[in-house]
């Protein structure tokens, strides 16, 4: 199980680095919102791996919180783009 958790953390770290590179590269608000959405999914998967490794119940609440906050952020940014433009 430890080897599996290490491989999962390595893959998630690599995808986090790739997403940060994408966020630094793009220049408009829609692509940035897409990148932040991907980043939220990476955080949720990482916290799920941590929850599976430790069996801690508090991490589960953090997963719920991050999912809802990511949804609220994406909806707010897209409504802002529709009203005010890029």
């Amino acid at each position, binding site marked *: 199980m430890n080897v599996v958790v290490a491989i*999962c953390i390595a893959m998630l770290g690599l995808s986090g680095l790739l997403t940060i590179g994408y966020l630094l590269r793009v220049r408009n608000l829609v692509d940035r919102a897409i990148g932040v959405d991907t980043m939220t*999914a990476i955080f*949720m998967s990482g916290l799920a791996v941590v929850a599976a490794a430790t069996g801690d119940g508090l991490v589960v609440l953090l997963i719920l919180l991050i999912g809802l906050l990511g949804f609220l952020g994406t*909806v707010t940014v897209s409504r802002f783009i529709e009203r005010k433009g890029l």
Partner: protein
Amino acid sequence: MSTVLDVASAILLLTGCALVLIAAIGLHRVPDAYARLHVATKPTTLAVLCTLTGAMLQMPGLSDVAKLVLCVVLQFWTTPVSSHLLGRAARSAGFQPLQPLAVDEQPPSTVN
């Protein structure tokens, strides 16, 4: 029984993390904002489903499993909504798809 659960959980966790990695690579490889929206939402939804199911199989108590089921259900409700809103925002901001649209149901007056 515990070994079976461990193996199933390990397979699900590895599948989910590989899907997240595929999504992050696809963000760099896809040329269009709408296609990037597809890449950023569809594999990550399946990845969150896989990793949360893998965490469910490791949880000791039933209340944590219930919370994780709630997480999966909320993710499956909210991701299509947010991706639809982002696509509509990209459309109203004037992004053009690389190939012309087959069906265009948005009236022209609402496009800026």
